[in-house]
Structure formats: C-alpha cells, structure tokens
C-alpha cells in the first residue's frame, strides 16, 4: 500500500467520455464523434459553481495532479493542484482533459479512422485553439457546469483560457493566463517549424503513416524536443544548472556528448521520443502557430477582449523568452484598454518558460491570493443544504 503526501489529491484515475454531437472545426471539416480523456479532483458543489478548468500546454494532458497506481511521479501540475495548494481541491472541482488531437486517450491521429480502418495519422483534422474551446464547452455541458469559476492555463493552455473569455464570455467568472502570449511571434513559429521539419524529414516518419510500418520517427521527435526544451529554459538557468560541466571531466576530442547540457538534452529528447506521438506534436505546434484571437476583430486585441465578462489574472516570468513578460503585457494593455478587470504579476525567476510549472514561492503566493478571490466569488448556494 502506498501513501501519498497530505497535500496531494492522492490516487486518481482518468475517464473517457464519448461525444456524438458533430463538432465543426475551423479547418472546415467535422468530427462526427470524438472521445475526451478527462480527470477530475475535488467535489462539484450542489449548484455546479465551483468548477475550474485546467487547459494544458503543448505536451500536456488530463493527468494534472495526483498519482496513478504504481506511479512515483504525480501529474504535471501537482505543485499547484491539491488540498491546500493554490488551486485548492477542498474548494474547487478541478477538471483536466487531454485536448483533441492529443495522444493520451482523447481522439487524435492514433485513433482508427472508420472510413479506412487505419489510424488517422496525418489525416486527423488540424485542431485550433477555438476548436478545443468548443470541445471543452461540450465537456462543461456534460459535467453540468454552466459557468466555470475559472479557466486556467499556462503557455498554450493560457491561450485556451484567453479564447474562452472571448468565445464564451458568460461561461467563466475568472480567466487565469500564465506565461502565455496573445499570438506567436515569427521567432516562436520559426522554432516550431524547426521541430516540425525534424519530425517530418525523419525517414521513419513515412509521411505520418508510421503506425502501419511499425515505426516511430524517434530521431525527429528527439530533435524536436531538444530544440523545444532549449526554448523552455533560460540562458541563466542553463548556466546555473549545467555551466560547462563535463561528464568525464576532460575533453575527449570526438563528437560524443561531453558537456552535461548535451547529455541532458539527449536524455530529455530520447525519453520524449518514446512517450509522445509525432503527429500530435505536429498538430499541437500548428495550433500554437494559428492562435490569433484578435484576427477576427480587426487585429485589435482590445476589441476582441471587450466581449469578455471574466476577471483576469495574468502572470509572467522574468527570464521566459519563449513567451516573455512583454507578451503578457500586451494582453494586460489590451485588457486595460478594454476597461476589463485585470491583475498582473511579473515573477522573478531564473527558470525561463518552465517556471510556470515550478512552485516558486512568490508565484505560489500571488496565485494563491488570486485563487482565494475566485473562491470568494463562488455564489452562495441557492439550492442550499438543509
């Protein structure tokens, strides 16, 4: 029998929910039916007003917190979700899901295409952030949640939260956007394209139909992850963590990895290459590239955000250069221009973009304070317990 830390949600299990109402997608195609892999923590209150949606980032999924049977490592945001943690499961009903196109149990490229009897592979429709938000709204309907107490996300997850506030203004009271951006820069897209090229040029990719070949484009995925990982760390952070430390302590005058940073990246890349699906990676990076909620509103983010009814909390990290504080400030400036309620904190940290997953004390204090405000805004039960 295993025991879990007191502030952990403990042993958890996901559930697969089936949806058969067709979902029209931005690309023009329709998903006739689909599956969402979902995990929840805490209890939904009587009037379903304490639900919080956690949107995941590029390689995330539904397993946000707690432990699976036999696992030593908890979910990806266990530092922030649990009893007494900033997203307090004693107060909130917390919902995590794997987005469509993912590779962790929701419908995606690995699913069998009923038309062919083969996995969709590259024929799975390209998903956009608005498509995901639509599917998440269907999930809210299924769970009986009319209005989220908050929609929360970091990075690509923050973009989903932002999209929620514009697309379904009346369906969330608070929107928490962490280490995110209102759209990708040319540099961001460039890094994504390097990752995509690494994958699609791998001979094992077979134009995306590698499942049938019993093959996996491991080299491509590894390179994609390595380049991605560099953008998640900061120069300072890498210097602090690796410096120029050498594994053998001296130069070996060959092309094997000698510096600690080289073997670290290779290790990260290799681990990722067996755990993540290449088609999903391509799809998720495209969703990032395409995200631009202002586009429909004359390229003016403030106009887009005028629709919002939620209150906003925006957080950025000083050494994040993937989605730098300037990018968060663009969101804040647009919110101020749109006369929306917003708080903004810029947390000092050496950890780069990765900081949003790390329980940095000031980050957690600020986050906790705002989550308390969200808890205070939960309407008192009208149905009431007698």
């Amino acid at each position, binding site marked *: 029998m295993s025991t879990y830390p007191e502030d952990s949600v403990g042993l958890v299990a996901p559930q697969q929910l089936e949806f058969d109402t067709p979902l029209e997608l931005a690309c023009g195609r329709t998903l006739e039916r689909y599956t969402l892999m979902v995990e929840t923590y805490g209890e939904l209150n009587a009037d379903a007003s304490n639900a919080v949606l956690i949107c995941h980032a590029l390689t995330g999924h539904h397993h946000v917190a707690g432990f699976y049977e036999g696992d030593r490592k908890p979910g990806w945001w266990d530092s922030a979700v649990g009893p007494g943690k900033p997203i307090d499961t004693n107060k909130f009903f917390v919902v995590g899901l794997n987005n469509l196109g993912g590779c962790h149990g929701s419908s995606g490229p690995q699913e069998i295409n009923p038309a062919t009897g083969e996995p969709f592979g590259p024929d799975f429709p390209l998903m956009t952030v608005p498509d995901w938000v639509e599917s998440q709204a269907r999930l809210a309907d299924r769970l009986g949640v009319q209005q989220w107490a908050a929609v929360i996300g970091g990075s690509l997850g923050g973009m989903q939260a932002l999209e929620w506030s514009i697309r379904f203004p009346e369906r969330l009271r608070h929107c928490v956007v962490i280490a995110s951006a209102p759209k990708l820069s040319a540099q961001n897209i460039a890094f994504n394209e390097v990752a995509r090229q690494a994958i699609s040029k791998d001979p094992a990719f077979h134009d995306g139909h590698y499942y049938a070949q019993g093959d996996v484009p491991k080299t491509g995925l590894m390179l994609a992850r390595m380049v991605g990982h560099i953008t998640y760390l900061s120069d300072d952070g890498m210097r602090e963590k690796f410096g120029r430390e050498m594994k053998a302590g001296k130069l070996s005058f060959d092309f094997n990895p000698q510096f600690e940073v080289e073997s670290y990246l290779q290790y990260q890349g290799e681990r990722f290459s067996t755990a993540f699906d290449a088609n999903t990676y391509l799809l998720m990076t495209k969703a990032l590239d395409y995200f631009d909620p202002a586009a429909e509103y004359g390229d003016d983010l403030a106009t887009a955000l005028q629709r919002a009814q939620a209150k906003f909390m925006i957080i950025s990290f000083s050494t994040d250069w993937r989605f730098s504080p300037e990018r968060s400030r663009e969101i804040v*400036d647009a919110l101020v221009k749109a006369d929306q309620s917003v708080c903004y904190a810029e947390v000092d940290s050496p950890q780069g973009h990765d900081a949003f997953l790390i329980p940095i004390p000031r980050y957690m204090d600020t986050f906790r304070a705002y989550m308390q405000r969200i808890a205070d805004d939960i309407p008192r039960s009208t149905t009431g317990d007698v």
Partner: protein
Amino acid sequence: MRADLEIIQEWIQPHTRLLDLGCGDGELLRHLTEHRQVTGYGIENDHDNITACIRKGVNVIEKDIDEGLASIEDNSFDTVVMTQALQVMHRPDQTIDEMLRIGKECIVTFPNFGHWRARGYLAFRGLMPVSKFLPYTWYDTPNIHFCTFKDFERLCVERNIDILNRTVVDNAHQHSWWTNLWPNMLGEIAIYRITR
C-alpha cells in the same frame, strides 16, 4: 484610511476611471470602488503590496513607473493619482508629464523638504534630515528627488501646469491654520490637484 487618502478621495468624482500610481496595498482604490463606484487600476512594484491588492480584490498591475507608461493611451483615465511616490521617481518631471498625458486630472502628494524640521536638521546638525516620517539615511533612501512646495509650483509654472487645488497637512495629515499661513515652512505633506 491614511489621512492624505481621506483628503484625496473627496476630490474624486463618482463613476470615474482612476489610475493609482504606486497604489501600495490598494486602500484608496478599494475605498473608491466601494463608495464611489470608481473603476480603475493600481500600478505597483512591491510584491507584498501586489499580493495585498489581489487579496482586497483591487486590480493591480505590476510595473515600474520609471520604465514608462507609454502603453497607456492619452486621456484614457479621468484621474491619475500618485501619493508619496514623486520623490522616488527617476525623473519626477517626466512622470508628471506622463500622468497629465494619460489623465484628464492628476493628484500628487509628496513630502515637503522645505518643512522647518528638515531645514533645522540640516542647518543645525549639518546632516541630511532623518525623521520618523522620513526614516532613511542619505545612502539607502529610495527618496532621490526631494523638493519643496515652492520647487513644485515653479515646475508647474515652467511646464504650463494648472493647479486646481492645493492643500498642505502636517505629518498627522491634519489641516491647521498655521500650515496654511506658511505652507512651505510648516506643511509637511503637499497634496496638489493639477491639470494641463
């Protein structure tokens, strides 16, 4: 509520849009939101103050005022307030210009370095004044640009700034007949309402 804030809040019209530069723990904004239906934001860079604002439900934006307010549009606020922060600005004149650009009206409060106690401290001890109200020594003080009421009013003349109201209080933030009689000597805190 802090007494200078008590005076300021009377100068703020209900249902207006306010920007509070260096908003501290958000006391003024919370009061005005609750009692005068004012909307707005506080700008602050002290972490504990930011957390305090969030706890109070005050909109607070982390920002270093010295790094500029350029992202805020012209005339986008009815009132821009800055209490007890002018003297820590890198360029107070430029900050005031920015405030007047963003706001239709501005309210500024600052400590008067021409107060008799400060003058006496320097005159008789030959040391930079240190008091309960200004507790720092010269090398660690955040207050890098002290001025007197006269200095401030001279700046207003030079820059074509109109003074709409002016009041001076002692360090208990009380008005009294003698501070009004000889403000530059007897007033400790100046509160100005200005426009351009």
